[in-house]
């Protein structure tokens, strides 16, 4: 009797599930729309974006300034090692105390082979492992995409990302210059700023997130190599 009752319930639930497939088109469209609306709403607020852009600009200036002074010191062959080291210390300090992945990606604004694409242009099923990111000052639908060319890229990336265990300090949450995702080419999308869990895997789209971890140094090196090759 219990079994019969259970089968009847399952059969009724299946009927209900089928009927849900026939609900009003407006309800379906509304639920689809709420997805994109919320994504837009969750974009970084204007003032925060402005502050983050300034930080990015400052980083670039410091790098350019650092390289210029380093070159000048070489040309003049003067005894300016202390100054040069001071600048290197500054950059090093950013690398240690700031977000290193931000640093790597910020320094690649001009020189990387990354292609600029819109969300619609990204093929999440291209079978390739890619890093996708957007700078805080980028347009709403502007992303950079770079494919990891290394052999066994997926296992390398996953291995590096599994080392991202450090918790993000509360005060630095959402202060990242870049929003970063990794596409595995099979529809799966993750972010190096999120812990590894089933709930943190997106499907064939880029999603907004609040950072949970700091990407590991090995992941930053992997990205740096991909940008420089």
């Amino acid at each position, binding site marked *: 009797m219990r079994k019969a009752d259970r089968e009847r319930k399952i059969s009724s639930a299946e009927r209900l599930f089928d009927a849900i497939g026939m609900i009003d088109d407006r309800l379906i469209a509304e*639920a689809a729309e709420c997805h994109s609306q919320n994504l837009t709403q969750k974009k970084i607020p204007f003032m925060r974006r402005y502050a983050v852009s300034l930080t990015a600009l400052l980083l670039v200036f410091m790098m350019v300034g650092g390289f210029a002074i380093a070159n000048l010191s070489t040309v003049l062959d003067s005894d300016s090692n202390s100054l040069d080291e001071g600048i290197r210390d500054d950059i090093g300090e950013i690398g240690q105390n700031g977000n290193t992945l931000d640093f790597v990606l910020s320094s690649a604004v001009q020189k990387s082979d990354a292609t600029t694409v819109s969300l619609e242009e990204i093929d999440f099923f291209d079978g390739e492992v890619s890093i996708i990111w957007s700078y805080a000052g980028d347009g709403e639908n502007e992303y950079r995409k770079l494919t990891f060319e290394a052999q066994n890229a997926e296992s390398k990336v996953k291995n590096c990302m599994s080392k991202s265990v450090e918790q993000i300090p509360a005060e630095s949450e959402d202060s990242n210059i870049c929003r970063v995702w990794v596409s595995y080419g099979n529809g799966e999308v993750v972010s190096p700023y999120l812990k590894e869990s089933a709930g943190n895997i997106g499907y064939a789209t880029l999603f907004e997130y609040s950072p949970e971890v700091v990407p590991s140094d090995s992941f930053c090196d992997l990205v740096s190599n991909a940008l420089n090759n």
Partner: protein
Amino acid sequence: MEDYQIVDLYWDRSERAISETDTKYGRMLTGISLGLVKIKEDAEECLSDTYLAAWNSMPDERPIYLGAFLSKIIRRISIDKYRAAHSEKRGGKDALVAELTECIPSATDVQKEYDNKLLAEALNRFLYSLDEEKRNIFVRRYFYSDAIDDIANRMNVSVGKVKTVLFRTRNALREFLLEEGVEL
């Protein structure tokens, strides 16, 4: 491209209709199918069948919400595919019952379709009575087959809240169907 322009392409019998549909809705439709069939190759097959069904249904139909129209098609195709695959896998009684469904007169399908339409109308009334957030959570879960975590991310709310909303909405739906005298 706007929905009405894509629909025009279908009505003009232009093959570009399919590529434009794929560009705009391909990923979303694959996501719906994959949520049901769980196998990428099957989802791709369902996507192709959906485009064919859309091609065959226009002209005649002129959907206002093309995304919703296509979502309904791929959902139905994916559910059928899932049931067929699982019925084959289970074998025994289920496989035999599946074979025997071919003997059931089509009038039963018509009756079933009619009953489902009445049920869908009741669901519409129920869903429109909910506030927008609850309604969207319910539709994302049971129409789009979204995971609870994904809904929480999408709606910018906690997983616990999504679970609570779904639990209460299911209970409210049960009461509503009882009040409406809907038999399942």
